């Protein structure tokens, strides 16, 4: 299934925090502000996963957030890509060996792009989202 052309013009992103320290979350919001300005690429943060094309997931998944993350993934329509932002979502980061963490994110939902860093710079996050779109194009269907 080829991606509709609108993907290159407008990409809506939904952000899910699964227990992160908020460092990555703030850098995601900073990516929208005039210094980095993703809106000129058509990348916008949306308030609901039902309108989203890309899910930005931060945080090692905590036990209470596990069912919510799964549900949000299911609510996002195809084609979609999951971008994990930050070290703790990718591999656990500094959080290993805890009773309340069930991550990392790729054990819960399939992940297309990992953006490492603690936290990654806003430029890296934008790069990650762009790579997610490229991954969608090559894969043809959602992952």
């Amino acid at each position, binding site marked *: 299934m080829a991606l509709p052309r609108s993907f290159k013009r407008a990409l809506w992103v939904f952000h899910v925090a699964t*227990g*992160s320290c908020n460092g990555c*979350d703030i850098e995601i919001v900073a990516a929208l*502000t005039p210094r980095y300005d993703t809106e000129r690429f058509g990348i916008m943060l949306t308030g*609901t996963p039902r309108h989203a094309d890309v899910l930005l997931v931060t945080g090692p998944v905590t036990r209470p957030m596990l069912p*919510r993350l799964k549900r949000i993934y299911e609510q996002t329509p195809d084609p979609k890509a999951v971008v994990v932002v930050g070290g703790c979502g990718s591999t656990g980061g500094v959080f290993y060996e805890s009773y309340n*963490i069930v991550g990392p994110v790729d054990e819960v939902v399939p992940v297309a792009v990992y953006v490492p860093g*603690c936290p990654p710079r806003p430029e890296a996050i934008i790069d990650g989202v762009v790579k997610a779109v490229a991954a969608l194009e090559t894969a043809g269907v959602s992952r």
Partner: protein
Amino acid sequence: MHNERINIQLDGGKSEMTYSIPIGPTHPALKEPIRFSFELEGERIVGVDIKPGFAHRGIEYMGMRRNLIQTLYLSERICGICSISHPLALTQAVEHAAGIEVPPRAQAIRTIIGELERIHSHILWAGVGAHELGFDTLLHLSWNVREKVMDLLEQLTGNRVDYAIPIYGGVRRDIPEEKAHLAYEALDYYKRLLGDMIDAFLHDKSVEMRTKNVGVLTYDEAVALCAVGPTARASGVNRDVRQDWPYYTFADMQIQAITPRDFGREPVGDVYDNIIVRLLEVGQAIDIIEHCMEHMPSGELMSIPKVPALLAALKKAEGEGIGRHEAPRGEVFHYIRLEADVEEPVAWKVRAPTYGNLMSWVPKFLGDEIADIPIIAASIDPCMCCMDRVHFVTRAGDRSTQWKQELVRRSREKTRRMCG
């Protein structure tokens, strides 16, 4: 339950006419996604229940299974916005417990980076608050202005967030003479802009209408519920760790807790007072940094420069200590107990400021409207405030799901209504 001593409804009165909305947890409004449950009579809030714990990672459990240096880096990631506050309190606790001295230059550098963090955090909060009221322009303007201090932090420490500056017994990086001009440039930039920010936030008619007498926390409530930080100072409680129990370079300065009286207003404890206190604290932080830069003591950066020697000293150490720091959100507190020949801390307790301000949400919400939920939740500065999903259940049992957009839409509509 009605507390007799202080007139606070801790669980809200339930009546036949109320219906309840749960909100969350997917909205990064706190250091944790959080769940609220509001009892409503019409549009008015008559009860609120708060369930945190969605970002509970078991930090203290993990910290007691790592050596102290690993615990230090773990503590930095407790919160990404006040990311130096936890290391500053933790190093203080361990230094008090183990009897490690910190050279004066290191203390000054710790103070400077802590105050730079305060500037970035308060401007961040102001932008987020504006977004909740519907002023996205102010959000973009203030976060653009914030980038200057983020650049300075990166130039001085190497990273925008998580600077890894404090280490037990000192700091890891210096602020050399060659970089001093960068700091002075940034401070001048903010000194010029502070007046404009105060104008944009405090002298704007629509901001005044939306925030005055909204989310009120009275002086007595703030004292009884043990609120900390700007939340308490906005209610007139002049409590500030830098004033009451001065540590690091604050010990040589006369810091005064900022309350709305410094702006010429009798404290009411509403959201407007919170804006006043935080913006004035940006000005105070600029003065503190300037003072520290001008009186920077010379000398070494660490009292135990080599990390293996430090680890050995910490392993031999026995004792307990507390460390306190005035983070942008309030008092951060760490308690630690060390035992000789044990690498891990035997007991570690962290108390972040929002922990102390959790209960002050209850009197703030009671009596206000649904449309005010976003701005009241943001007023104690729980890190980020984008409430995501609101689920309405009416008495008849039919449900409708409303999204963050809906809540923000209601909030903006209220602004338009009030501005006429």
